[in-house]
């Protein structure tokens, strides 16, 4: 397998357990993971590199996942359309429509359903 075959996924999640879990699972699906543990570093990494997909937790320190998503979507370049899958334990009991309103393409409630997550990752990276 050459480097080119990998899809680049930015995982924004402050729990290191979930970070590592996703890293292992997605590597299995030929995705290369970049980790970000807070909303600000998500934006920094998104600006400095090109990704195929973002998996974004809602409950992030410094800048929450909804604000980070809105920030990304407000961009003027093609990059602003990157697929974003939201994941959350929904601590604030937000209506699901808020996630889509912010610009997320999909939303999954924790605990994660791995089959569904992998299906979504495949759908958005075209990795079939």
């Amino acid at each position, binding site marked *: 397998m050459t480097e080119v075959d990998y899809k680049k996924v930015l995982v924004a999640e402050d729990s290191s357990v979930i970070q590592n879990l996703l890293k292992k699972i997605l590597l299995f699906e030929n995705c290369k993971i970049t980790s970000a543990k807070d909303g600000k570093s998500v934006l920094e990494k998104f600006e400095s590199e090109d990704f195929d997909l973002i998996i974004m937790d809602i409950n992030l320190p410094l800048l929450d996942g909804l604000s980070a998503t809105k920030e990304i979507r407000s961009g003027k370049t093609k990059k602003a359309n990157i697929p974003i899958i939201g994941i959350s334990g929904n601590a604030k009991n937000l209506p*699901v*429509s808020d996630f889509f309103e912010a610009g997320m393409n999909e939303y999954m409630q924790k605990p994660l359903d791995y089959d569904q997550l992998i299906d979504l990752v495949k759908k958005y990276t075209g990795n079939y």
Partner: protein
Amino acid sequence: MKNTHGIILVVDDNEINRKYVNTVLRGQSRTVHLAENGFEGLKLASTKNIDLALIDIQMPDMDGFECHNRMREKIGSNTPILAITAYSDPEDRDRFIRFGFNDYMTKPVKPEVLKNTVQYWLKESAKIEKKSRSGAVTPDFNLDTVEELKRYASQDELIELYNEFIEETNTFNQKLLFLQNVNDHTEILSILHTIKGNAGSLGFTKLSELVTLLESDLKNKIDLSLNERIGEIVDYTSEIFSEYATQLNLNL
């Protein structure tokens, strides 16, 4: 990914709204039934096999709340009922969910948001049905989760993950025991939230549930003996951490 099939019932007294929702949702293996008031909606709910209902809150004669209650009796608790409302007061956020609606949307709803939200709940209701068939008592572990994980990661990787989770949770537990003494509820809530997500995602169903209950009681400021509840979680954790490997068929 294929679209989830679904028969959707829309109850709204405003004709333009009904037409709008119908245009956005119809097609792609979804069927939409329209009702202009609660009575008509209830009639349709008894004759059609509804997968999801969307109810406007502000309606004359029978408002959305009453319609929700009478609809629940007909379609049961596994079928999502979503409210559509013109209210946008953030104070009202929890109100609909506490009343029994699965979710709500605030007007005006963009077409993409409407479609995605309905799609999400159709998928979700398929999951609820699967769960409710598998029994009521919460088991310690969800073996399906672990089996799923095994398909995507090797045994060694899984063991590493579980060890990390256990180590982190033990550290969190020590922090909780400290924080309860200084009454730092914000930090306690943040830790509980992380444990909830981690535990659930690794198949520790009951631990996740215990933590979820405490999180919600603490948030709603329900009178609770915090020290006791945290103690219970810590005890339960050490109990299952000693036996999880066997239970989950992980050969350490």
